[in-house]
């Protein structure tokens, strides 16, 4: 094997945290190398060192056999290394071409640089099959297309070695598959690719060789063809992990939450939810599958009282909610509806608050936390400590800022907060988004345990595997409607087709589409653009 990049004995500490400990690896030229590890294992730090964002405390980097010093990303780019970040660095209101040219304008007059760039983009499209309309506004592109722009940006700067940091974190399963097809094409054209991820499925699907990191150390190296997900999971976590979930058959009881012809129309008249009928019974887990942006977010908002329905009725533990009798989140919570939101950082917690303050979000007016108009801080701290104990949140420090916890621990804290209240109905959005394997196993077991004590659980997830292993019944959403219901254990292909709007059960004259449906997509674009803006504005 010829190595494009060799790292030797790389060491890096941040204060007292030893993030990378004497790591060595070789990245083969023209192949896809995966680096897998849990959040915080040091993968991103290692790649940031390679890309010149951080300096290693010790160790050498060799590109094509020559030792190099990576002082800054400029050096890395000069050596043909490009990085596609997890969070896109694109300007929404610029066109694709403008974004690609940004930082490489080639002179004070934009016109000359852009016409050269246009020609170069066409060449890249020809060579690598990366098609994006150069004149489209980035805000109007789907997330998958935006990522393609990021890749184009890197290739445009002459990169021959591509580092992708958790590229699928923001993608739907379909978009992830598309990305992998693109990576395969790039590889066939001789581009060297490094894929950083914590998802086993992606390593197995896309890479030729995989390195496993744990707690800052490189613990194993395998040819992908000679390993399996179970072995990798064990190497990552450091103990045996059960990827299969054991659960007993459900014992559904009375209907706790019923939706009848539920509809939601936004201010501009766009139909976000249409004719939703569903019954959620005590003691069962109902899974909502679908490509993200097909109304799942809105469904959770309506069911949890954040948005009132425009049409139809919702019956929650005996209370009727409709357009003229809207509920609010506080009332829903009092009725026994707990809600673990899809995006914990944006909704489920306040990053700047102490963990103990996050632990009472939404329950802060309960008498156990406030008496005589005063918050009982000691009681809040003790309560948080109990939650952390029960759900194994680490580190167990109620006074620590919520943002200092890893994604998995944040999620466990939010789940703990909602589940310890022993709700009658539990709404869970993306239970394991950005969560490590070890924590996923735990979260799934807790959800099943909740079901077994008689809670009605609704799980919304874009991870098909998760829905398949958790749910007792699966409803598929497409373009704001529930297009079908299948029993647990349905095959993935059928579900995938239903998610793409190509198939409904029972069979109905639904227009088949090759890719994910356009209407679902359009809505996602708008939403994503808004989200990005909001986030941008906060920084």
């Amino acid at each position, binding site marked *: 094997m010829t190595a494009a990049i060799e790292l030797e004995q790389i060491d890096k500490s941040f204060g007292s945290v030893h993030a990378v400990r004497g790591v060595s690896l070789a990245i083969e030229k023209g192949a896809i190398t995966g680096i897998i590890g849990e959040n915080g294992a040091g993968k991103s730090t290692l790649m940031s060192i390679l890309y010149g*964002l951080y300096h290693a405390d010790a160790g050498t980097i060799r590109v094509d056999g020559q030792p190099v010093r990576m002082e800054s990303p400029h050096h890395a780019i000069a050596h043909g290394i490009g990085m596609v970040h997890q969070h896109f660095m694109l300007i929404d209101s610029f066109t694709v071409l403008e974004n690609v040219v940004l930082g490489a304008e080639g002179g004070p007059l934009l016109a000359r640089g852009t016409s050269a760039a246009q020609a170069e983009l066409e060449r890249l499209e020809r060579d690598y099959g990366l098609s994006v309309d150069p004149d489209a506004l980035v805000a109007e592109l789907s997330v998958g297309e935006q990522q393609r722009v990021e890749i184009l940006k890197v290739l445009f700067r002459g990169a021959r070695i591509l580092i992708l940091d958790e590229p699928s974190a923001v993608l739907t399963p379909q978009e992830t598959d598309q990305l992998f097809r693109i990576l395969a094409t790039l590889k066939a054209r001789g581009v060297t690719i490094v894929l950083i991820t914590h998802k086993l499925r992606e390593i197995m699907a896309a890479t030729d060789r995989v390195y496993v990191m744990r707690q800052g150390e490189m613990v194993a190296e395998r040819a992908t063809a000679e390993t399996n997900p179970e072995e990798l999971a064990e190497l990552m976590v450091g103990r045996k992990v059960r990827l299969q979930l054991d659960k007993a058959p459900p014992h559904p009881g009375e209907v706790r939450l019923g939706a009848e012809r539920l509809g939601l129309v936004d201010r501009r008249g766009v139909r976000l939810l249409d004719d939703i009928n569903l019954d959620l019974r005590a003691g069962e887990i109902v899974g909502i599958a679908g490509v993200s942006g097909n109304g799942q977010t809105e469904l959770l908002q309506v069911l949890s009282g954040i948005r009132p329905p425009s049409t139809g009725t919702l019956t929650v533990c005996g209370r009727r909610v409709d357009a003229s009798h809207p509920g*609010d989140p506080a009332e829903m919570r009092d009725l026994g509806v707990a809600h673990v939101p899809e995006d914990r950082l*944006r909704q489920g917690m*306040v990053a700047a*608050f102490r963990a103990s303050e996050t632990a009472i*979000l939404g329950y802060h007016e309960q008498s156990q936390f406030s008496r005589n108009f005063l918050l009982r801080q000691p009681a809040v701290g003790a309560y948080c400590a109990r939650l952390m104990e029960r759900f194994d949140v680490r580190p167990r420090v109620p006074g620590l800022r919520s943002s200092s916890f890893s994604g998995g621990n944040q999620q466990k804290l939010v789940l703990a907060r909602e589940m310890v209240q022993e709700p009658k109905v539990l709404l869970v959005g993306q239970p394991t988004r950005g969560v490590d394997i070890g924590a996923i196993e735990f979260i799934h077991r807790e959800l099943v345990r909740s079901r077994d004590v008689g809670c009605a659980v609704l799980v919304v997830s874009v991870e098909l595997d998760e829905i398949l292993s958790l749910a007792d019944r699966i409803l598929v959403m497409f373009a704001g409607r529930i297009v079908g219901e299948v029993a647990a254990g349905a095959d993935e292909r059928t579900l995938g087709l239903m998610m793409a709007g190509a198939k409904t059960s029972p069979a109905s004259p639904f227009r088949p589409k090759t890719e994910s449906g356009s209407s679902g997509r359009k809505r996602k674009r708008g939403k994503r653009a808004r989200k990005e803006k909001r986030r941008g504005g906060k920084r």
Partner: protein
Amino acid sequence: MNARLPLPAWAEIVLLPLVNIALAFITVGIIVRVIGVDPLHALELLVVGAFGSPESIGYTLYYATNFIFTGLAVSIAFHGGLFNIGGEGQAYIGGLGCGLAVLAFDRYLPIWLMIPVGIAAAALFGAAWAAVPAWLQAWRGSHIVITTIMFNFVAAALMVYLMVNVLIAPDSMTPQSRGFAPSAFMPAMGGNALNLSLALALVCCVGVWVFLWHTPWGYALRTMGHNPEAAVYAGTDLRRMTMLAMCLSGALAGLVGVNELMGVHHRIVLDFPAGYGFAGIAVSLMGRNHPFGIVLAAVLFGALQQGGAELSFDIPDITREMVVVIQGLVILFCGALVHLPRPWLQTLLALRRPS
């Protein structure tokens, strides 16, 4: 480029503001030097002018009282994610409320009743003046920064109209109301302008601290400030919370009227807020939006106000305008450029630490 570690808490709270103040004074020193005055001599006069005698300390604290009120007003709104630029107008209208209550009742009520009524009226009018922009923000989406700024002008115009046409004392040539009866005099502390309003201001500090960090409403308010979506998720009505935050903010600003009118002027006069409302933004920023920090920042601003006046009195070369420049520089370094020295401190502290 190296990843910088966040500053430890002590450096954030104590060291950074001190470095900011030092930078401001060094810059001031250079300017004072340029106009031909010995900077150390000027500094000495400034400090003696602010803290040199019981009387000067009294004035410093009297000014600080106003800065505490307006600083607290800015900070409580800020914790709710709202930038209240209208402290000036709210203080003005708060004074109007205070004055109206006194003019209506000072002949009938004893002092122990008159003063609470005056305070309540000031708070109420200040809150009402803040409630309008708050309502516009909550229900109509008009940006609070714009509306509160405009309400400052409306307040100033309204006061001129009222003082010239309505409230002017019958035999007066200047636009001011009749004098208050002694039952409406805020008890003085020491011989000069300093009065019991300082105690009220300190009580407000404790009150704001308890409210923000030890009540469920303060908790909800801070949630809204940090993450409005999480606040909605938690069941907080953002409109009502916006109203609450702004009304409390306006009430605190309105209390400037108590210190000024019941404490010193003993009548309604024009232009008594004199920029305290705007300086409150700098006080709050410098005090890290925390009541304790605000007290410290307010004392610094009070000292600059008092010491600066003495300075221009003693050294003719340093004019009144020059003192404003000095204050401006302190606001610049402690407010606008508050984060300027942070990377330097981070690098410095990182050197100290074994890596």
